[in-house]
Every structure is written in C-alpha cells, then in structure tokens.
C-alpha cells in the first residue's frame, strides 16, 4: 500500500485526535508521509469528532472521498462514516457487532488500564491487524502518552487477542516532523527572532498561543494573553515600538476588533505581524470549520491609505517560511503584515522536513546609528526611517496622529503630504524585494491553468497533475504580485480560479489583471476532496 486513508472517530473527549496522532507517528516509522485532517465541533464533551489520516509514500496533503480504514471508537462513528469506507473496519465490539476487526476496547482498557484509554486499544487493534511491529507501537505510545505501564498492558492484550489481517510493508523511517500549521507558524516566527507573542484565545489560531506558552521559557520569549483583541494589538504595538519583535494571533472576528490597531501600526510605522486563521464567517459563523472568506477583509482591514502585506501559505512548510518572511519584512519595512491561514492549515497535521528549518533566520532591520539628534520619522529616499527604541539616550516619539519627522503632531498641509508619501514610497523597494522571493508558485505548464491559494491549492495541484492543467498559486495577495502573475498567465487561454468562499474573493483580485473564465467555489466549511474537484473541473 503506497497510499491509503484512515478515518478515526469518536465522541469529543474519547481521544480520537490523540489516536490519529499516534497512528501518524507509527506510519512515519514505516516510511509514510502523513497528513491529518481534523474535524471537530464547537463543544467539549460528546458530539462527534474525527480525524482523517492520509498516508502516502509521496507527500499528499489532501483528502480523497473514500477511506481504506475506519476506526470507530463508538457506534455513532460507524454509522456516520461506513458509507465512506472502502476497506477494513476496526471497531469497538463492546458496542456493536459488524464485519471487520472487533476489539473490546472498553473492556480491555477498563481491565488493563483506565476507561479513558480505549483509544490506545483501538490503535493497537489497527496495528495488529496490519501486522505492525508491537515494539514500534509501544515506543511511540510511550513518547506521546502518559501512564506507560497501563498503555503497555493494553497493547499486549490487544496484540494477543486480535488477528493479523494484512502486512503493512515497512519502508525507511522518515526523519520528517509531524507539525500542525500553528506549530509551524510558531517555529517560523521564532526563527525570525520573535520575542513577544500576544493573543486572546480564538479558534483556530489558539494553538499558537498554546504552543508558544509551552516553549516560552526555552526560547526566552514573553507570551501574554490580554483582556481582548484590542488590548492585544495595542500592547503589541507598545512592545514593537520598544524594539521587541512581536506578533499576535487571531481569527476574522479578532482581526475586526484589531483593525484600528492595524491602521495605527501603519501610520506609526510600528512593525507588526498578525496571524489570522480563517474560519467560516460571517460573525461567529462556523467556528471550527474552514473557509477562505477573509482574503479581501485582510487586505482591507484598517482605515486610511496604507501598505500592508498579506501572505497566504498552503501547508506546514509554507506556513513556516512565510511567517518567518512576514516578521522579517515587517521589521525591515516597519509596516503591518498578515499571515492568512485557515482552520485546516492551522489545526491539521503536516509532514515537515527538518531541512526546511535550515538556512537564514532573522533578517536585521535598518537601525539608527548616526550621531546627533534622532528623528523617528526621518524622511529618506526609500521611505524607511532608521529604527530606534526608547531608552537609548534619544527621544523617540511614535504616534498615530499625522506628524513631522520628529513625531510631533502636525496639521500642516505640506507636512501631511510629505509624511504620507514617505510611507507609501516604501512600496517600490518592497515590491522589488518581494519579486525576488518567489511568491507566485507555478506547477506544470500549458494553456489551461488553475489559480488557487491556501490549503485549497494542495488538492488543486494533484487534480491539475491528473488533468494536465498548469497551477498558479500566489503566496501573497498584498501587494498583489502583478508582474509574477502576468508572467504566469503568459500563454494561458483558459483560467479557472478555485477557492473556498462564496464570492470568489481571489478571483475578484485576479480580474484586475486578466479574465477569469471559470470559478469553482465551495463554502460548506469542508475542503474539496480529490474526486469532487476533478468532477467540478471536468464534468463527465
């Protein structure tokens, strides 16, 4: 089996997510790349949660319609997903009797360990059915779970009672890491020298707050959970003004609250990275499901005329690279940037090559080194005023009012005009720099192309390969990479835009450059599956 898919499900609190992470860890030892898609509801106990694990010898970070294995912690999982199974069922035989591999996971976990460890028993049932090395399972379980002895006893008993059904061939142990997008973003920001992280909890970016809170001592960073998003962005501006590389994380609703602060970051030229994990809006919307409907909002958030960068990664590795780039460039250009994630990218687990983390990390900002009197908003040809924080023997005045070079409020016509032009002038150098960073990815060639962005582009790439389409994937939408897009559109006669929103937001931006022939949109909170997208592109 070079490529298969597993569904693991149960009620919230029954540990299906942990089970899926454990399976991913075992499969990694067997030489598989894994992509774990999480589907859960906005509740703490009960309901139905499931994970879909895509395992493949080559990296595939998207889902197919049918799964090859279904692991049902409860009967509800079986009923909900049996239609999508084209393969082997591994189920809780304390609750039902079906064709497949039944494991008394409740009885076994109660007798050998604790009742809540039924998920370990189910994973063990799966492992034995696939003849997976018991020692490998134990090693990974010990790494991931507490109560070592109980877990080992459960595994031993399941391995005694369950029969082998097939043999999963072991490939070379891959050295890749399994990271959620939130973890990848955290690491990218740390690589770029993140010093402070501020947030108010909001799905789906809360994982960044959790991860950084866990590692804050190791990295000597400060993590601050403020009273609301307005406090978050303003405190972050205070810290960045004081020379600390600071980032904040939220979702669409939080960005809405932060918007005045985004504008303040721009006029005060205070570097700022905002990580925005999109979920389905409007308003509270569908909080634990994904969407791509905050693109235009992110580009436009904040009143007044100003520059902002909006980056759109599609997977863990891009999330790492672009969070690093966004923080670095925010500091180089002293302006706000948004890393636009989505629920699937934030919370799903990606295989991540450690080599991605090598190479350059922090890029230094332009700092003031002159003698004489410091002017925070010194007019320069490129528009960038050398940075200095307070406490260095100079008076440093930052402000949200229009101001003169010193940072004192002005209402003089000439000064207003001059300062606004200075800020916007950065665009020229910025665009030049962005052009050198490969921010429009192109896969394949030909006169038919699909443009997509974010996690949607992962499945698009696969379908395009099958159907012989060229794929164009922008990693930045603000400033719009017009030149790179024009180059990519060269020779393209038919352009399809695929994205997960109702209005075709990226398409509306692309239409400034060229005609969009067709839009394929989805707005149900769920990603396109391979088969679904293939059918939409080429209806039979």
């Amino acid at each position, binding site marked *: 089996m070079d490529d298969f898919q597993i569904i693991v499900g149960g009620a919230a609190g029954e540990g299906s997510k942990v089970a899926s992470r454990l399976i991913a860890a075992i499969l990694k030892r067997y030489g598989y790349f894994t992509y774990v898609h999480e589907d859960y509801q906005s509740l703490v106990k009960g309901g139905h949660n499931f994970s879909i694990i895509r395992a493949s010898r080559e990296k595939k970070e998207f889902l197919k319609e049918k799964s090859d294995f279904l692991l049902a912690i409860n009967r509800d999982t079986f009923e909900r997903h049996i239609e999508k199974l084209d393969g082997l069922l591994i189920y809780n035989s304390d609750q039902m009797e079906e064709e497949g591999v039944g494991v008394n996971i409740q009885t076994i976990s109660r007798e050998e360990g604790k009742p809540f460890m039924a998920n370990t028993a189910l994973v063990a049932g799966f492992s034995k059915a696939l003849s997976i090395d018991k020692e490998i399972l134990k090693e990974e379980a010990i*790494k991931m779970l507490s109560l070592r002895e109980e877990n080992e006893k459960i595994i031993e008993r399941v391995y005694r009672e369950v029969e082998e059904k097939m043999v999963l061939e072991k490939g070379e142990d891959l050295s890749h*890491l399994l*990271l959620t997008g939130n*973890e990848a973003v955290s*690491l990218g920001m*740390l*690589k770029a020298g993140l*010093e*402070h992280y*501020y947030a108010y909890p909001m799905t789906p970016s809360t994982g960044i707050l959790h991860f950084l809170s866990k*590692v*804050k*001592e*190791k*990295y*000597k*960073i*400060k993590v*601050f959970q*403020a*009273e*609301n998003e*307005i*406090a*978050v962005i*303003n*405190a*972050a*501006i*205070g*810290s*960045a*003004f*004081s*020379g*600390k590389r*600071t980032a904040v994380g939220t979702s669409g609703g939080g960005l809405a609250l932060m918007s*005045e*602060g985004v504008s*303040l970051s721009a006029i*005060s030229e205070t570097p700022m990275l905002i990580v925005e994990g999109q979920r389905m809006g409007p308003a509270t919307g569908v909080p634990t499901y994904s969407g791509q409907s905050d693109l235009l909002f992110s580009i436009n958030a904040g009143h007044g005329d100003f520059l902002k960068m909006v980056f759109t990664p599609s997977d863990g590795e891009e999330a790492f690279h672009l969070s690093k780039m966004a923080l670095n460039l925010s500091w180089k250009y002293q302006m706000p940037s948004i890393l636009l994630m989505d629920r699937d990218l934030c919370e799903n687990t990606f295989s*991540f090559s*450690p080599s991605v*983390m090598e190479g350059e990390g922090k890029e230094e900002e332009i700092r003031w080194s002159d003698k004489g009197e410091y002017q925070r908003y010194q007019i320069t040809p490129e528009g960038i005023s050398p940075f200095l*924080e*307070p*406490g260095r*023997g*100079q*008076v*440093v*005045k*930052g*402000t*949200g*009012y229009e101001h003169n070079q010193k*940072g*004192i*409020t002005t209402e003089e016509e000439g000064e207003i005009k001059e300062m606004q032009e200075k800020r916007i002038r950065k665009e020229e150098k910025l665009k030049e720099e962005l052009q050198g960073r490969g921010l429009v990815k192109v896969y394949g060639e030909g006169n038919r192309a699909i443009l997509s962005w974010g996690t949607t582009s992962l499945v698009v790439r696969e379908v395009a390969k099958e159907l012989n389409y060229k794929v164009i994937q922008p990693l930045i939408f603000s400033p719009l990479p017009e030149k790179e897009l024009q180059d990519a559109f060269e020779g393209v006669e038919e352009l399809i835009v695929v994205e997960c929103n109702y209005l075709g937001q990226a398409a509306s931006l692309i239409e400034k450059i060229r005609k969009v022939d067709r839009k394929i949109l989805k707005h149900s909170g769920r990603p396109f599956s391979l088969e679904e997208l293939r059918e939409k592109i080429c209806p039979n």
Partner: protein
Amino acid sequence: MSQLILPTKNSWCPGCGNFGILKALEKGIEEPDRTVAVSGIGCHGKIVDYLNLSSFYGLHGRPVPVATGIKLATPHLKVVAFSGDGDSLNEGISHLIHAAKRNNDITVILHQNRNFALTVKQFTATSPRGFISNSSPSGNIEDPLNPLDLMDASGSSFIARGSSLEIDHLSYLIREAISHRGFSFLEVLQPCVAWFDTTKEYKEKTYKMEEIPENYKEKIKEWDYNNGSKIPLGIFKKEEKETFEDRLKSGEKEVNLFEIANG
C-alpha cells in the same frame, strides 16, 4: 536631556487645567531619560507633544495596553500613561480594570475633566447627573462612576487623587505614583475652562489628606462625583504587591527548533 517641556506650539485653551498638570510634571518626572510617556486621544493626549520624553501617542481609549506592552518590552524604563475620563473610563475602561487586576508596573495619570472636551462637550462616565451637554441637552440622565472605587475593586495597588490647581502637591503625587512598584492610578481633577469650569467648586471643596487613611475605602466614597461633599486629595491606597512583570517568568534562550518540534 535638559528641559522637560518642548517649545511645541500649545493648543490647549488658555487657562486649561492641563497646564497645571504639565507644570507639575516638571518636578514630578525624576528620570526623564528612563521614562516613556503614552497618551490616548482627547485634550489630555496632546501632552506628549509638549514633553521632551520618548512617547507613544496612541488611539482613543488605548494608552493603557500600549503602556503595558512598552513595560513588557523594556522593564527597566518607567512607563506613564496619560489618559482622560472619556479615554479610559468610557472607551477603554476594560484595559484599566485588567491592568489594575494584573498589577502591571505602569502609572496611569487620568486627566479628569468630566466631559468630552475635544469633541466640544458631551457627557462622560464621570459627568454629574443633570450635566447639560451637546449630547444631553436636557441634562445627563446617568449617574457618574467613581473611578477610584472601581480601581480599588480591580486591585490597583496605588490609588491617589490630585488637582491641577494644586501643582506642588500634584508633583509630589506624580513622584509617588511613578516610584510605586505596581499599578498606580492617579486621578487629577482638572477644570475644563471651556465646557465644565469646576475651579470654584474644587477650590472650595478639595482638601488634602495628610497621610494614607486607614478607612481608605470610605474616603474613596466620600465624594461620589455628584454630591456637594468635600473632596479628599492625596494617596488613598499604597500596597506592596508582586507585579505582573515579576511573575512573568522567562528562561534561557536556546535555538534548537528540531528538539522543540519533536516535543
């Protein structure tokens, strides 16, 4: 740094209470090189343009979180947030409550003129009942809030009230507030000569407490911003308490992304 006051053209009304506060700062700010000022929006906010200090002129209602962030970034500096009643008792009241609760080591100087002055007279959270303004032409139908009482309930470790008419006393309070470790709340009563000239009332009714009163909770409630009672000035509360910054521990920096990623 030589002079504290910059020669910037001043745009406060002649006779504005803010001049008294500015004057009091000359003797109140003891370490200008190690002080960062923050302000919100309103007449009070202009003060950062007149001070030869590093400063950040923030949004309406938000000087307290900006000050919080500056202090987290540069704990060795003194951070003073200037704010107004409209700024931090209306627009940004949540920040004031939470910064007091956390005991952030910052000082808030609240310019209390009891109306929105820069937007030409509307009622604020501390305007008295019956206050005639452009948004309450028949008189304010709301009762005022007692910010000192709120700060006490929120856990502020330093609470004081001064008056822009008592400059030397105010300088003393500013020094005390800034040197206090922890969250310091200093309210400064300030007549608004344009819209709410309380000069006569404050001259008649304010009195200075010689020391921190034992029954400070009662003293805080003596004047309810509505009644005609006496108005105590001075320090109501001063409590030694661990600051937020003390508690926010951080360890040694080592860059090993691989190890972290592997959990």
